[in-house]
């Protein structure tokens, strides 16, 4: 087990190196002028421009720039933002709490809704209840995150006034609508997978054995079928949580939440290389860590994986 984790960590480092190069290159491929955004498009002398370029190492070759950036990153220094004139570490630190709580809340909400919905649909397969749940989840699969967010805001914040429309960082109530908006897509996909996997498990031989040896139906469904169905469910959920990081960018922007998403978008608009690089690299890292955790979870759940 320890060896397995070490091996995966090693792979993770390789992936991160490759990703850092990609991010670095992609930021520079975009047709934008960072100096122009530093000066807010004002006319400044060529000297000032040259000074700015030197200050941010933009006068150096790309390989040199990469080395400067990555050396900083390895020391925990993501560089200085072109537009905010502040450390990217600080900018991220200020906002990461909002984004992580949003993703965490949405993820929890999604799992808590999706798994029961999927299990009920599977147990009540082809009844009106299953069909109703299927229709609802299909609607949410089809609806993109920003649309769900806007509709929720329109109905529950502007019309019914149950929740505030704008997030101002005051407690969990403000987070509910954004979290629901972000969760719905995942609820839909995870509950579909739960349903399919559960139906498959419920029709399997060992469930017939469990029934034939007289275990109560509830126990058969939860401790036998659901536990066996968890691996595919977790796989989908982990991918979804990764997607959620991206969705969070959109939701944050709809509810003006000022999280990492906002920072990323403004960074892209302003060609703020250090911000874009820093935030993207962080998101990739979070995604990779989730994947690693999921692989460990597989081994915990399934002895066939654990003992290999």
């Amino acid at each position: 087990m320890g060896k397995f984790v070490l091996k995966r960590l090693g792979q993770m480092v390789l992936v991160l190196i490759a990703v850092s190069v990609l991010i670095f290159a992609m930021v520079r491929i975009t047709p934008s002028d960072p100096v122009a955004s530093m000066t807010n498009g004002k006319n400044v002398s060529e000297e000032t421009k040259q000074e700015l370029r030197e200050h941010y190492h933009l006068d150096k070759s790309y390989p040199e720039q990469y080395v400067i950036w990555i050396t900083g990153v390895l020391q925990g220094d993501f560089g200085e933002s072109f537009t905010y004139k502040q450390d990217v570490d600080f900018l991220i630190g200020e906002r990461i709490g909002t984004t992580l709580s949003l993703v965490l809340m949405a993820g929890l909400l999604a799992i808590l809704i999706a798994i029961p919905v999927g299990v009920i649909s599977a147990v009540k397969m082809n009844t009106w209840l299953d069909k109703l749940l299927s229709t609802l989840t299909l609607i949410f699969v089809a609806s993109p995150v920003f649309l769900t967010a806007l509709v929720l805001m329109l109905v529950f914040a502007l019309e019914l006034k149950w929740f505030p429309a704008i997030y101002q960082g005051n407690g969990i109530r403000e987070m509910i609508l954004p979290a629901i908006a972000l969760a719905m897509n995942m609820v839909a996909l995870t509950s579909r997978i739960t349903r399919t996997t559960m139906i498959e498990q419920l029709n399997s031989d060992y469930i017939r054995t469990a029934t034939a040896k007289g275990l109560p139906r509830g126990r058969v469904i939860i401790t036998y079928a659901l536990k066996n169905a968890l691996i595919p469910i977790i796989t989908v959920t982990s991918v979804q949580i990764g997607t959620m990081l991206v969705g969070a960018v959109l939701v944050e922007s709809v509810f003006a939440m000022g999280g990492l998403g906002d920072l990323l978008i403004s960074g892209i608009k302003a060609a703020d290389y250090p911000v874009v690089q820093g935030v993207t690299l962080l998101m990739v890292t979070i995604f990779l860590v989730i994947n690693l955790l999921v692989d460990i979870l597989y081994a915990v759940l399934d002895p066939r994986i654990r003992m290999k």
Partner: protein
Amino acid sequence: MDNLLEIQNLTVELMSTRGIVYALSGVDLAVRPGEIHGIVGESGCGKSMTAKSILRLHNPQRSRMRGSIRFEGRELLDLSNREMEKLRGTDISMIFQDPMTSLNPIMTIGGQIADMYRVHTGAGKAEAWEKAQELLAKVGIEPASKRCKQYPFELSGGMQQRVMIAMAIACSPKLLIADEPTTALDVTIQAQILELLQQLSADMGMSILLITHNFGVVAETCDRVSVMYAGKVVETGDTRELLQGASHPYSRALIRSIPGGGAKGSRLETIPGSPPALFEPPLSCMFAPRCPYAEEGCLKAYPAMADCGGGHLAACFKPLDKEVPAHV
């Protein structure tokens, strides 16, 4: 002698996408206390369906059961789901054809045995675990204390079937239904499993309903045997008697098609034609279209099970004479 299990006129209809399938159309079967009773027949004749019906393992939404299944005088078809759960595993238990997939893959074998034991007896964890080890030792899985902690995928097919048996006898049931328990195993293991079942039946006074398509298995293990064809039992009798002189033309044809029965070098006997599709309820003898002895009357009504001497029953208008060798 009172029968332990008595099935009368059991019909099972399954709702399929192609319409109603008359899977069982009036099965009569009786299992006596302590006996090993075989059910033989070709694929799709309703052997497994009968077995599953006793424990009511069909999906109730897609099947309809009628008739009577009496176990120790209790009508099983009238029991509530809760009552049925209590009866499964305690009074009647069951093992299946494919031990590889019949065990929960992510639970230790000891855990699976202990789990059902606790549900039925309310025993504590430690006691149930003790019991699980004891049961594993009883079915010949040694050393039980170590094996208990293993997962199904760490065991061979034969061992897995032994685990299934250990689980099935945990609460000392009066009837064990064994649905093709050796079909998925190789021949030497088959013999061991059958021997184990016989020994357990004798030791515990447990009846076994053994479903198989293999007359060899029946000959070696069963006290009595019922032959099924197209959703009905067509003949029941003492194993030796039936093997030597079956009264129903189908039983006789089936026995004659066992490989190795004829003279060396002779062609393997077969039954011409194929079993009917079961999309319509039977109105006449289902075997009549393939039967060399069929007469006009055979196509008009269904023959009831009738005694042809000494408790030997056959559903045939013209049961064959036991002494006269049949020509198929």
